[in-house]
């Protein structure tokens, strides 16, 4: 330890840049492999959009784990609920969805997304109170309870909406692509990337620039200490849980529009993807989650283009590789 004079500024924590360079390096390495610049650009744009959507869904999960050591295996349920709730708004207003005016489309899409977020956030409140509070601090029971919650939620969705796949066409103004030279970039992907970036920046600002964020970060570091300072970390946690659930709902809407269909089983596949992202990023780290989501999406897109056969297990291979390099994920936040 070096001695510090009282007037010296506190030493800045070292910035760990290697994980940030990883997706950039990956994107550069595949250029010669893909060969054509235009398809590389299209693939990269697709990866970014997909990564942003996964990030939105996964961010809540990783924060909740970091803050309270709670891993919600039923996180996927919020995604599906969000998507289904969106159909409640989008189906009656199908006409204005198909009108070729961006503002009219957004006037329907935005309330739908907000309603989805509200419903999944409220559901998050119920889940936290009913399923997680009673088994607080017991990992095994948490996993079992939240898995039970996932089963019930999925079945309830089937009971309410029926088992068929609900088509959810993209609004007219978001279909098609921007064409720049010989590069085609789907309009919806641009929107998804923008929303994802906005969410990431918002989360980063709240976490790093506000008192609330300070408390959350402090809680991730050392829960007891924050409690000892007189803050009700339980309430803080409830807030984070609801926000995470609402974000999962938003992600669900975006994913459903991306795939143009809604089905209760979408939560199963996405849960796996989200878990991989959260593990890669390091449990509890928002930055790691962001990079992890982009990496997973890149590997899926590039891999699917270059070696389609490998795409099936590419996520697992990526996870193994990252964990070989850093056993606790890209950014290890917690000592747990």
């Amino acid at each position, binding site marked *: 330890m070096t001695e510090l004079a009282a007037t010296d500024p506190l030493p800045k924590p070292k910035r760990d840049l290697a994980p940030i360079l990883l997706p950039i390096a990956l994107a550069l390495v595949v250029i010669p492999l893909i060969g054509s610049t235009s398809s590389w650009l299209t693939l990269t744009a697709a990866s970014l959009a997909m990564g942003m959507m996964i990030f939105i869904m996964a961010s809540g999960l990783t924060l909740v784990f970091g803050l309270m050591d709670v891993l919600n295996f039923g996180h996927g349920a919020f995604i599906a609920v969000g998507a289904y709730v969106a159909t409640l708004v989008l189906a009656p207003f199908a006409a204005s969805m198909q009108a070729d005016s961006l503002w009219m489309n957004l006037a329907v899409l935005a309330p739908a997304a907000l309603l989805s977020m509200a419903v999944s956030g409220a559901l998050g409140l119920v889940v936290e109170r009913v399923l997680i509070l009673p088994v607080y601090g017991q990992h095994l029971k948490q996993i079992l309870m939240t898995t039970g919650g996932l089963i019930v939620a999925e079945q309830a969705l089937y*009971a309410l909406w029926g088992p068929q796949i609900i088509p959810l066409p993209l609004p007219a103004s978001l279909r098609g692509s921007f064409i720049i030279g010989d590069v085609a970039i789907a309009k919806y992907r641009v929107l998804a990337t923008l929303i994802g970036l906005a969410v990431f920046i918002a989360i980063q600002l709240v976490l790093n620039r506000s008192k609330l964020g300070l408390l959350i970060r402090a809680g991730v570091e050392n829960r007891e200490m924050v409690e000892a300072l007189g803050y009700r970390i339980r309430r803080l946690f409830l807030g984070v849980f609801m926000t995470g659930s609402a974000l999962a709902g938003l992600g669900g809407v975006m994913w459903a529009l991306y795939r143009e269909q809604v089905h209760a089983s979408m939560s199963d596949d996405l849960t796996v993807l989200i*878990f991989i992202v959260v593990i890669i990023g390091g449990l509890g780290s928002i930055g790691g989650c962001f990079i992890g989501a982009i990496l997973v999406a890149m590997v899926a897109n590039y891999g699917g283009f270059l070696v389609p056969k490998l795409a*099936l297990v590419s996520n697992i291979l990526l996870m193994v590789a990252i964990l070989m390099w850093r056993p606790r994920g890209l950014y290890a936040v917690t000592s747990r």
Partner: protein
Amino acid sequence: MMILSGDPPRSRVLTLILVVIILALAATPFLFPGAKALNVAAKICVFAALVASYDLLLGYTGSVSFAHTMFYGIGSYAIAIALYAMGPNWGAVATGIVIGLPLAALLALAIGLFSLRVAAIFFAMITLAVASAFQVLASQLSWLTGGEDGRSFQLPELLRPGTVLISKNLVGFEINGRTLTYYLVFAVSALMILGLLRVVNSPFGRVLQAIRENRFRAEALGFRTVFHLTYANCLAALVAASAGILNALWLRYAGPDTSLSFSIMLDILLMVVIGGMGTIYGAIIGATIFILAQNYLQSLMGVASKAAAEAGLPLLPGLLHPDRWLLWLGLLFIASVYFFPTGVVGRLRSGGGDKSPSASH
């Protein structure tokens, strides 16, 4: 006592229920004629063994694995592919076993060494990821696995339904290859459950429980916890693969829906928790309750759903629809984790049954 490895059910009611279940299973071919009853009974046998092996992991070591169906599927597919490719002979059965079991054990070893070093939660996530990748792999490699259709195959001559071993007019009922297969399934499942009972009551099993209660302390006492956990993981995988083999032999088919899907994993979780974690006996009870419910509760719900629809009640017909039976079992699952985490077996042992001196847990 010897055969139960000194770990009797320790409750009169529980003993009675177990005896009834086992006698009913043993006598199913004679008591309940018809293909459905025999199918249900065989499924109970297979799942009792499968769930018991999962109990070794969940109940005794406290680690949640989501890859158990993967091992079950490896067993199923190994025997199915071998019998499909080599024709219905015993050599193919042996090949399936010789390839399937070591493959399952090796994979379990790899997963264990990779992820059991860290917290239970990490293990749960990684097994979930690996299992889903395996599932996709199995449905994509259709030249080998038959893809979504799976593989149907013929059994060796002796085990076919057409093979009459003792004809009907000799003892009053026919004993054919199908009956023989059923008893093969029954006997091997029973042996595996007794074997697991032996494992959990051995010194090794005690160490597993010590790790479950306090891993750090177990390590401080000088046990190599990673070794023990990995070993338990491999054992559970072997039993699961064997159960998969039995299941494939019984169904004469292996496919993604019957042996690999995530819903089977959830079924196993439900069975082990409802039956009672960390008891092995709970596996038999849980599997019986669950599979009986799966096969007979649905028709009951269908009647209730119709009645509700005729009475003009809103929402209820949808909630009571036969396909939604898992909704109610899910609620039961949450309630049982919350209110009686020791399941049916723990409930029976703690109250109602006789208070014979029980080993402290």
